[in-house]
């Protein structure tokens, strides 16, 4: 019998359920996150226009670069300021 050493980080992942998807956006604050991918701003401009026409409160956010994870401060800001987020993932 061979015994080897685990080459992984041996994480025990705790699964957390996602927040339930809202039935409607009415009354919710919507965040729009531009991750700095090409043309993401164009897509989000149009989404903002559509949502604003419906009378929704929209806040814009931007990652400094798409090549790195969002700064923690930005994630925390989004989490405290809006109820849902729409992210423009790719060009």
């Amino acid at each position, binding site marked *: *019998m061979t015994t080897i*050493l*685990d*080459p*992984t980080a041996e*994480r025990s992942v705790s699964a957390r359920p996602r927040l339930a998807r809202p039935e409607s956006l009415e009354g919710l604050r919507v965040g729009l996150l531009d991750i700095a991918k090409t043309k993401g701003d164009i897509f989000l401009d149009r989404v903002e226009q559509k949502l604003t026409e419906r009378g929704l409160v929209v806040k814009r956010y931007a990652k400094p*670069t798409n090549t*790195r994870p969002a700064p923690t401060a930005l994630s925390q800001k989004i989490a405290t300021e809006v109820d849902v987020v729409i992210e423009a993932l790719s060009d």
Partner: protein
Amino acid sequence: MNLPDTGLVAIVKRDCETCVMTEPVLAALAAAGSLTVYVQDDPTFPESVPHDHDATLDVSHKLNIEVVPTLLLRENGQEVGRTFGWHKVQWRELTGLATLGEDLPDLRPGCGAKNIEPGIIEDLLVRHGETGLKSRRVEFGTQEDEIEALFDRGWSDGLPVVPPTEARVLRMLGGTARDPQEVIGKIPSDLADCTVEKVAINAVMAGCKPEYLPVVLAAVEAVLEEPFSMHGVLATTMFVGPMVIVNGPIRRSIGMNAKGNALGQGFRANNTIGRALQLVIRNVGGGRPQEVDRATLGNPGKVGFCVAEDEEGSCWESLATERGIPKGKNAVTVFAGYGLQGIVDQKSRDPESLAQSFAECLKAVQHPKLYQGADALVVVCPEHERTFREAGWSKARLYDELHARTQRLADEIMPGAGGVAEGTTAFAAGTMARKFRDGGLMIVRAGGGAGMFSGIIGGWSASGEKGSSPVTKEIKL
């Protein structure tokens, strides 16, 4: 282990001349009273003295024997004195026999004990549960093929890996003076703490020798530096993976190849160091293709891409030296690079023509109309370097020439220009566009003596501050 509560204990081996020399002394001690002798190797030695064979070396290990012969004195179950090698005065003091070894010289050094030989000490530490290794033990069934079991658990890059047994990992850790539990950083994408021990495990799996471990550790540390942006390099849909360039005397001491087939297969250090880095990313960080690794095509170098610069054959300062590492120090430089694009020029014999050839090929990195996106590494072969050397071109001169000669008129690279929709809008019409950012070119010298074939390793579109910058790190032994 049947050690006497009170009495003398000697540990010897036949393969040690000093032990053989002391046989008459041991015989005298045995005749005088309580002496227990353990022999580490030949069970017939010493013929003239009653003895036990420490076949498993467990007795020697428990007694922490480092040198043979060792003579130790026990009283009431405790060791109260020991001497090693042949030291007449000390042996006499320990035994209380004033005329012991009268015919022998005063001093004769002993030999290394068998229980601390590399390859043996590790097995003893494992058997006695004294490895200090913290990783979870995974036991394979007796009918389980180890190599297949490692594939099945998803811990391979697609090629067989060496099973990381405790003994192998201990031997690997012998390659560094660093504490196995030292955390060297958080590996993306899981941002999991990575210890020296985890790197050693993956280095074993990659096929590294212990003496490669400091290079692997430096490479892991380098990719974790913020400017390298390992998370992005891993997650991008583009081709790149971490390429490692090694400089300094360690290249030669661990047998790295910087000459013929410098970027290819066939040289253990080159091939396994790069592989170990990628296994750390995969296994510790959880970066697997078609998961967080979103590469569309990837490149063959993502199994592992590690090269050594031929510093001795170069007329230029090394890559590490130009990046701030003092000459004579060991360093790795990591670069987010992808496969090889050749520069074939067998006709240029003056540096201007050759530099222009290099530039024409460099313009095509990623796309001839994409300007100031990717960095590039140029690997200059000996026959091309000769042309620059004989003309007295410094490395700085070559950098300047390549930057100047890769410029294109902005109008030529606009989207739609030349009938190609792809293009660059960052430069005003009528101006000259620079292909590479400042510091976006790197030159190393490697390769076999014959052949006018240099190479370009292209970088990531997101090179520099917006993505990944090369990182150079000194290697700690």
